[in-house]
C-alpha cells in the first residue's frame, strides 16, 4: 500500500451518552502517532473541550460542525490523500460512509484507511453482518420473521426455546418479550403481532443471562492478528456493555473457552479485512445455576457454545478501557497500522524494548463501573438494558477482585455510597422483593444488601443471571464486614481488610472508629499501600512507563520522584456538570508543569480520558479521587514536597481541598480558604459587601414564615435553592407564594438543619468571565454573554464570545469586579465569575451571582477563541511565575475579530422519563463550538453542530405559557414569514388565529380525541417544538409529554424563547454561506 502523506481525522463531536471522552483520548493519540510517522494530520471536530483540537496535536485543526457539507469543504481545501474514520466513534464511521456514498472521497482521491467502507456497512447493517458471519461459519443468534403464532411455534423445532419476540416498527420495543415455554411463546407472539404495524414479528434465540464477553482485536496489513484484552461483563447478556460492570481479564473462562473466542475474534477481523483495532462481543454458555433459569437448553452441553453478538470495526469505549486496563495503546497502534505499518515495526512504548505485536499479560484485575446520571435526574427511569444510559465510567485496578470493585465504587463519587450503603426501604418488604436486583444503577448495592439479608446463590442467579463466581466474591466482602463488626481491629484483620479493598472509612464505620483513627492506627502498624506498575507484560520485562495503581502487597515500585514535582488532582468520571472540560484542564496543567521543569503527577480514575494516558504526565496514579487514596499517594511521594493542584479537576478536586488543608498538606495555587469564602454563603456576602460589589438581594431562611416575609420584601420572582448543594442542583425559580411554599415544604422536609436561600431573581442578561490571577494582577481573556436569560444553568446556555451586545461600560464594570474579587480573594490561578446585567431606564447594573476560584467548564472554549493558554498561565502562576514574568499583564485581552459560540448538547433521547426543559439544573452532557468571522456564521454553525437548528422548512408545534405569549408574538410572526407552518395547542392557537395567521390547533389533552400533540410529533407533521413552561408543577407535567415526544422523535425542542430568538436569527441569515477555515485563520485573521 502506498503510504498516505496527509490524513484527515474525524473527531466524534460533542460528549453524548455512548460517546464520551474516550474519543478525545483515541483521536489525540492517533494524531500524535501519525505525526511521528511524518504524516500531516488534518483534524475536524465540533467539540472545543478536547485536547485533540489543541495546538500541537494535529497539524491542521478545524473546529466545525461534523456534516458532509463541511467535511467536503475541508477536503477541497486541504486535499488529504487519506481519511481515518475509525477514531471518531460512530459519528466518524457514519460520516465516512456518507462521504463515500456521496462520491466525495473518490472525487478527491481520498483513500479510506484502516477499515474499508464495505466493512463498516457490513458491521452496521444487521442482515449483512449476519450473512458475513454465517459465510465464515461463525454462530449468530438464529432468527426468523413470522406472521402468525403457528409459524412462531414451528421455529421452536429449529431454534428451540427460549425465544425473544420483537415486533417490527415499534418504538422502544413495546409489545415484545421473552418466551421460555410454548404457552409463553403463544401469548408473546400474539401480543407482538397485535402491536406490530406490519403484521410481522422477529423471533430470535434469546440470549438473556448468557455470559457476555468482549475481545479487543488488532490486525495489520501483513495479516498478523493479535488480541489485546478479553473483558467479562458481570452483568450478563441483556444489559448494554456500556452500562455493565466489567472486569478484565475474563475470570470464569477456561483456557479452552478463552482460546475458542480468541480464535473466533481473529477469524472475524480477517474476514472483515480491518487494518487496526476492532471490538467483538460474544455470548457464551452460562453457569448451570444461571442456565437453569435463563438458558435451559444450555444445561446439558458438553462444551460451551458461543454466539457473535456485535462487531465495532473501530476504536471504541471498550478499546479505551482495554488500553488503560492493559497499557496497550490501541488507538496509537491503530493509527500506525492504518498507514501501512506492521505490528512488528511498532515499538511497545510501555517496555520500550518489545514490539506492538504481542498480547498483553496482566497481573492484576481491573473493574469498570459505569457512572449514571440518576443522581441528577431523579425522575429518570433507572432501569438499564439495551439502551446505554451511563455518561461516564470509572476503572480501578487491584490484585484481588474485591479490592478492584471496592476501589471502583469509591471512584464513582456518588455521595457517600460505599458498598455498605443500602436504601432503608429495601429491607422493609418481606423476602427480597424490595431489593432492586433487576438491571439498574443501584443493582450492585442491592445485590450486597440482599446477600446480607441471606438470599441464596440460587435465587441470586435466578434473579440476576450473574455468575456464581462473582456472587462468591461479593460474599467474601460481606464475610470481612462481619469480621470487622465482630472482632477487635488487629494488624492481621486490618491487613486482610485492606487487601480486600476496604477503605479506612468503611473500616471505621464497621469497627466503630473515626476514619482518621483508622488511618493513624493503620500507619502505626505499617500497613500502607504499595504501588505497582501497569506494564503490559506481568513484570516479564522492565517497564519504562510510570503508570501505577495501589495495592496492599510487599514491594513498592513507585519510588518517590526526587525532583521538584506537583500533583494534579483529576476530575473522575464524566457526569452531567463535570465533563471532559476538566480533564482538558488537568492535561494542560500537567504539560505546563513539565514546561517549567516541574515533574507532573496525575491522579485520576477515569479510563476514557487523555489525562490517564500513560505519557501525558511524568507519573500517573490510577486511583480513586478520595481523601484516603490522595493522601496515600502524597505520603508515598513525600507529602511535604508534593504540592497538590485542586483547581482543574472540577468539583472532585475542589472537594479535596479541605481534607488536604486539614492534614496541613501543601497546595499549588489558591487552596481551601478562597474556596470557602466563595462557597460559604455568609462569608461570600460579607466579602462582596466589603468590596462594595452588588449582588442580588436575598437571605437564608429556615421556616416558611421567615421565607414569606423575606419574599414580601424582595418581590417575585425569586430564585430558591438549598444552601448545602452546589452547582444549581434543586434550584428553582418561583413566581408566587404558592410555589414558594411548595418548594419550602419539600426542601425543609429533606433537610431542616440547613437554611434555604432565597434571592431576588434578576431578569437580566447573564454574563460570565474566566480570568487568570497571579495575586496582584488579573488577566481577563474575554467575556461571554449568555443567550438564555438568568435562570437557565450556565452550562446549558448558549454562550457568545465576545459579548457583542454589551456596552464598553458594562464590560469595564465586569473587568473591574473580576479584578477586585480575584485580588481580594488572593487567587493564584483561575477564577470564574458569573454576573447578571440588569438594564433599567438606560441605566445598567452589574450584579455578581457566583464566584468560583477554580477552572470552569468554559476554560477550553475561552482558550480556543482568545488564543490565551489559560491553564498553562494559571499553572505557572501557581509555580511562582507572575503574569508579567510570562509575558502577559492584567486587564482585558484584546478582542478577537472572530465570534465564537458555545452551544450545549443533550443526551435526552437516551434518558427515559427525564424532562428536558432548560432550567436552573444542568442537563447537557456536552458542548460544541461555532466559530466564524461574524455572528450569523458562528451562530448557524453552533446550532447545526448542536442539532438545535430549525429545518429549512416544515411545521412548528407551539405551546406557549400565558406569561410568555406577548414576548413570543413577534417570533411566531417571523416563523410564519419564513414560511413555516404552525401547529399550536389550544391557547396558543387562539392567540395566533387572533392575529390572522393560519394555524392548526392540536389538543394537548391526550385523552380527548386525535390528532393530539403527540400524534403530530410522531407522524412527523411537525418538525420542531416550542414549549415554554410556567413555574407550576402541573404545567410542567402538562408539557412533559410534548417535550419527551419531541426528544424521542429527535426534533428540536425549544423551551426558552431566548433560544428561539437566536435560532430565528440564524434562519434569517441562512441564505449566506458560512466559512470553513482552519482555527489559526480565525484567530489570526484572513491573510
Amino acid at each position: 500500500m502506498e503510504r498516505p502523506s496527509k490524513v484527515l481525522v474525524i473527531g466524534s463531536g460533542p460528549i453524548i451518552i455512548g460517546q464520551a471522552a474516550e474519543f478525545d483520548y483515541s483521536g489525540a493519540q492517533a494524531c500524535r502517532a501519525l505525526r511521528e510517522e511524518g504524516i500531516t494530520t488534518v483534524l475536524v471536530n465540533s467539540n472545543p473541550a478536547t485536547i485533540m483540537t489543541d495546538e500541537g496535536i494535529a497539524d491542521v485543526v478545524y473546529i466545525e460542525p461534523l456534516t458532509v457539507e463541511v467535511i467536503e469543504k475541508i477536503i477541497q481545501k486541504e486535499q488529504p490523500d487519506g481519511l481515518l474514520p475509525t477514531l471518531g466513534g460512530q459519528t466518524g464511521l457514519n460520516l465516512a460512509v456518507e462521504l463515500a456514498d456521496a462520491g466525495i472521497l473518490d472525487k478527491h482521491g481520498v483513500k479510506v484507511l484502516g477499515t474499508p467502507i464495505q466493512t463498516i456497512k457490513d458491521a452496521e447493517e444487521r442482515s449483512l453482518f449476519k450473512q458475513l458471519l454465517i459465510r465464515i461459519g461463525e454462530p449468530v443468534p438464529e432468527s426468523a420473521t413470522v406472521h402468525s403464532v403457528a409459524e412462531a411455534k414451528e421455529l421452536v423445532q429449529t431454534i428451540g426455546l427460549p425465544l425473544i419476540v420483537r415486533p417490527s416498527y415499534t418504538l422502544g420495543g413495546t409489545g415484545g418479550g421473552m418466551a421460555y415455554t410454548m404457552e409463553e411463546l403463544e401469548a408473546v407472539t400474539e401480543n407482538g403481532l397485535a402491536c406490530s404495524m406490519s403484521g410481522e414479528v422477529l423471533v430470535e434465540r434469546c440470549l438473556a443471562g448468557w455470559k457476555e464477553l468482549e475481545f479487543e482485536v488488532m490486525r495489520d496489513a501483513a495479516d498478523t492478528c493479535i488480541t489485546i484484552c478479553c473483558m467479562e461483563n458481570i452483568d450478563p447478556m441483556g444489559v448494554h456493555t456500556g452500562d455493565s460492570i466489567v472486569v478484565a481479564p475474563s475470570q470464569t473462562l477456561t483456557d479452552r473457552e478463552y482460546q475458542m473466542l480468541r480464535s473466533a475474534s481473529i477469524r472475524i477481523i480477517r474476514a472483515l479485512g480491518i487494518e487496526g483495532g476492532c471490538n467483538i462481543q460474544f455470548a457464551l454458555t452460562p453457569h448451570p445455576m444461571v442456565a437453569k433459569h435463563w438458558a435451559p437448553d444450555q444445561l446439558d452441553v458438553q462444551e460451551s457454545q458461543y454466539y457473535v453478538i456485535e462487531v465495532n470495526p473501530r476504536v471504541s469505549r471498550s478499546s479505551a478501557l482495554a488500553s488503560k486496563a492493559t497499557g496497550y495503546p490501541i488507538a496509537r497502534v491503530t493509527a500506525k497500522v492504518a498507514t501501512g505499518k506492521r505490528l512488528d515495526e511498532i515499538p511497545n512504548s510501555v517496555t520500550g524494548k518489545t514490539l506492538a505485536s504481542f498480547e498483553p499479560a496482566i497481573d492484576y484485575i481491573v473493574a469498570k463501573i459505569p457512572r449514571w446520571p440518576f443522581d441528577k435526574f431523579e425522575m429518570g427511569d433507572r432501569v438499564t438494558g439495551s439502551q446505554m444510559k451511563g455518561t461516564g465510567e470509572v476503572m480501578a485496578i487491584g490484585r484481588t477482585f474485591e479490592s478492584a470493585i471496592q476501589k471502583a465504587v469509591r471512584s464513582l463519587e456518588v455521595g457517600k455510597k460505599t458498598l455498605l450503603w443500602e436504601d432503608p426501604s429495601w429491607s422493609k418488604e418481606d423476602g427480597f422483593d424490595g431489593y432492586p436486583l433487576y438491571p439498574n444503577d443501584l443493582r450492585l448495592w442491592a445485590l450486597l444488601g440482599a446477600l446480607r439479608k441471606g438470599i441464596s446463590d440460587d435465587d441470586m442467579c435466578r434473579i440476576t443471571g450473574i455468575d456464581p463466581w462473582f456472587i462468591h466474591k461479593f460474599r467474601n466482602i460481606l464475610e470481612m464486614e462481619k469480621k470487622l463488626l465482630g472482632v477487635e481491629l488487629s494488624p492481621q484483620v486490618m491487613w486482610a481488610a485492606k487487601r480486600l479493598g476496604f477503605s479506612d472509612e468503611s473500616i471505621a464505620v464497621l469497627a466503630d472508629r473515626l476514619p482518621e483513627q483508622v488511618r493513624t492506627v493503620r500507619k502505626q502498624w505499617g500497613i500502607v499501600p504499595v504501588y505497582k506498575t501497569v506494564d503490559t507484560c506481568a513484570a516479564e520485562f522492565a517497564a519504562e512507563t510510570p503508570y501505577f495503581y495501589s495495592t496492599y502487597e510487599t514491594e513498592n515500585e513507585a519510588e518517590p520522584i526526587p525532583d521538584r514535582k506537583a500533583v494534579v488532582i483529576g476530575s473522575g468520571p464524566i457526569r452531567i456538570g463535570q465533563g471532559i472540560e476538566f480533564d482538558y484542564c488537568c492535561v494542560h496543567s500537567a504539560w505546563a508543569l513539565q514546561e517549567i521543569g516541574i515533574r507532573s503527577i496525575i491522579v485520576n480514575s477515569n479510563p476514557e480520558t487523555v489525562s490517564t494516558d500513560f505519557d501525558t504526565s511524568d507519573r500517573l496514579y490510577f486511583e480513586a479521587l478520595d481523601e484516603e487514596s490522595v493522601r496515600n499517594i502524597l505520603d508515598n511521594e513525600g507529602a511535604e514536597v508534593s504540592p497538590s493542584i485542586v483547581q482543574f479537576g472540577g468539583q472532585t478536586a475542589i472537594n479535596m481541598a479541605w481534607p488536604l488543608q486539614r492534614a496541613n498538606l501543601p497546595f499549588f495555587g489558591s487552596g481551601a480558604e478562597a474556596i470557602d469564602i466563595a462557597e460559604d454563603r455568609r462569608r461570600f456576602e460579607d466579602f462582596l459587601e466589603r468590596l462594595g460589589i452588588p449582588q442580588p438581594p436575598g437571605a437564608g431562611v429556615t421556616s416558611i414564615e421567615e421565607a414569606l416575609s423575606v419574599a414580601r420584601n424582595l418581590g417575585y420572582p425569586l430564585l430558591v435553592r438549598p444552601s448545602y448543594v452546589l452547582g444549581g442542583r434543586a434550584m428553582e425559580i418561583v413566581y408566587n407564594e404558592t410555589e414558594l411554599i411548595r418548594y419550602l415544604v419539600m426542601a425543609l422536609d429533606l433537610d431542616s438543619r440547613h437554611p434555604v436561600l432565597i434571592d431576588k431573581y434578576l431578569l437580566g442578561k447573564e454574563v460570565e468571565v474566566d480570568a487568570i490571577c497571579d495575586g496582584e494582577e488579573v488577566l481577563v481573556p474575554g467575556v461571554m454573554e449568555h443567550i438564555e436569560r438568568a435562570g437557565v444553568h450556565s452550562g446549558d446556555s448558549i454562550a457568545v464570545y465576545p459579548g457583542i451586545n454589551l456596552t464598553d461600560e458594562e464590560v469595564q464594570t465586569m473587568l473591574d469586579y473580576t479584578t477586585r474579587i480575584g485580588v481580594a480573594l488572593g487567587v493564584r490561578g483561575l477564577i470564574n465569575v458569573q454576573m447578571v446585567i440588569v438594564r433599567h431606564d438606560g441605566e445598567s447594573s452589574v450584579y455578581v451571582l457566583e464566584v468560583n476560584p477554580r477552572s470552569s467548564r468554559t476554560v477550553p472554549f475561552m482558550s480556543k477563541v482568545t488564543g490565551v493558554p489559560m491553564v498553562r498561565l494559571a499553572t505557572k502562576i501557581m509555580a511562582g511565575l507572575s503574569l508579567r514574568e510570562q509575558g502577559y499583564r492584567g486587564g482585558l485581552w484584546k478582542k478577537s475579530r472572530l465570534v465564537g459560540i458555545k452551544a450545549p448538547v443533550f443526551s435526552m433521547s437516551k434518558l427515559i422519563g427525564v424532562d428536558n426543559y432548560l432550567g436552573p439544573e444542568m442537563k447537557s452532557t456536552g458542548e460544541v463550538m461555532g466559530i466564524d468571522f461574524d455572528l450569523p456564521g458562528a451562530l448557524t454553525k453552533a446550532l447545526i453542530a448542536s442539532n438545535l437548528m430549525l429545518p429549512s422548512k416544515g411545521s412548528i408545534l407551539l405551546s406557549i405559557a400565558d406569561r410568555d405569549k406577548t414576548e413570543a408574538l413577534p417570533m411566531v410572526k417571523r416563523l410564519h414569514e419564513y414560511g413555516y407552518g404552525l401547529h399550536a395547542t389550544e391557547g396558543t392557537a387562539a392567540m395566533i388565529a387572533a392575529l390572522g395567521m393560519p394555524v392548526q390547533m392540536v389538543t394537548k389533552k391526550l385523552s380527548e380525541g386525535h390528532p393530539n400533540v403527540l400524534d403530530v410529533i410522531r407522524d412527523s407533521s411537525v418538525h420542531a417544538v416550542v414549549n415554554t413552561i410556567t413555574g407550576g408543577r402541573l404545567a410542567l407535567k402538562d408539557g412533559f409529554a410534548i417535550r419527551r415526544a419531541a426528544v424521542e422523535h429527535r426534533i428540536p425542542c425549544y423551551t426558552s424563547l431566548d433560544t428561539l430568538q437566536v435560532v430565528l436569527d440564524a434562519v434569517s441569515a441562512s441564505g449566506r454561506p458560512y466559512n470553513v477555515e482552519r482555527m489559526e485563520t480565525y484567530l489570526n485573521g484572513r491573510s
Partner: protein
Amino acid sequence: MDDKAYLVLEDGTTYEGNAFGARTSSCGEVVFDTSMTGYQEMLTDPSFAGQLLTLTYPLIGNYGINAIDDQSSHVQARGLIVREHCASPSHFQSSETLDAYLTRQGIPGIAGIDTRSLTRRLRSSGVMMGVLTSEMTPAEALRALHAAPSYEEQDLAAEASTDSEWATPPQHSGRNPMHVVLLDCGVKQGITNHLAAAGCQVTVVPLWTTADRIRELAPDGVLVSPGPGDPLHLSVVEEMMCQLLGNLPIMGICLGHQLIARAFGAKTYKLKFGHHGGNHPVRDVATGRVYITTQNHGYAVDDASLPDGLTVSHVNLNDGTVEGLSHRDYPLLSIQYHAEGSPGPKDSSYLFTQFVDLMQQHAS
C-alpha cells in the same frame, strides 16, 4: 486460620504465605508463567517437571479443575505459587477445587504472597532453586535446598517419558492416515490430540527408543516432543536422531526442537528466566507474519552455532532468540514454541497440518 507456608529461594529470600494443596515440602527451580488462563494444563505439562511454578496472574483456580484439560497423567510441577487460589470455583465442567486437586496429587501450594515481587526478582536475578514448605522453618528449608540436586543435574525428561510404547486409537478418516512416531520426552495431551485431529495415527515411544526400532515401526514421520530439563542429558536422543535425519520427515517441538538442533551439531544454552507464557510473538521469517505463541522453555538454540544447511525459520520478537529451524535438504519442521497451545493460542496449530503435508510429500 490457614496454615503457614514458606517459599525460600536459593539466595535466602523468603516469602511467607498460606499453605494450600498438600502439606508437604518440595524443592525445584522457581519459574514464572504469564498465561492468564490454563493453570490445569500448565500444572500437568511435563515440561514443568522439576519446577515450582509461579503464576503471575493473581486469581487462580476460578473455574476449578475439570476432567478434560489434563495434559498428562498427573501434576508435573513440583509446587504452585499464587497470589490467591479460588475456594469457590465456578464452571459447569469443574469437578473439584484447585486446592483439593493439588492435595490429592500430593503437590504443595503457597498463596497470598506478592507474586509480582517474586517475578521481578526472578527477572533480574534469573531463575533459581527454591523450596516450598509448610513443614520446615525458613532456615531448615534453606539447608534442605542446599542438599538437594540442582535443576540442571536432574534427568527430568527420562522421568517424564513413557515406559512403554502405546498407540492412539486408529483413525477412521477416509484417506490414508499418516503414521507418526512420537518420541516422548514429556508429551502433552494437546500434541496427540492435534496429530489425531490432523488425521495421524500416532505411536508414542520412550525417548530411549533406538533408530532401528523406529524404522521397524515404519512411520511416515517422527515428532520429538517437548519435555523438561537440560537437553544435555539426552545425548541418547541426539545420537538416535542422527541416524534418522534426512530419511524421514521430522517435527520437533520445544525440547524436541533443541534435540534436533543438537543432533545437527548446534549448541543449546540456558536462558536467564526462560520463556513461559502464552503471549510470545514469533515471526515466520519466510512470510513475515507474526504469530502469538505459547512458550515453555528454559533453554534455547544458539543461532551462532548452526551448521551449514540449518537455518532459522522463526524468530522470537521479544529477544531475538531462535524459535524455529528448517533445513536446506531435509524434511524438517522444528519449532521452539508450542503449536498445540494447551494452554494458549491456537494460531500455530496449522503447523501440524504442515507436518502432515510434509509427510505426504515425502511418501509420494
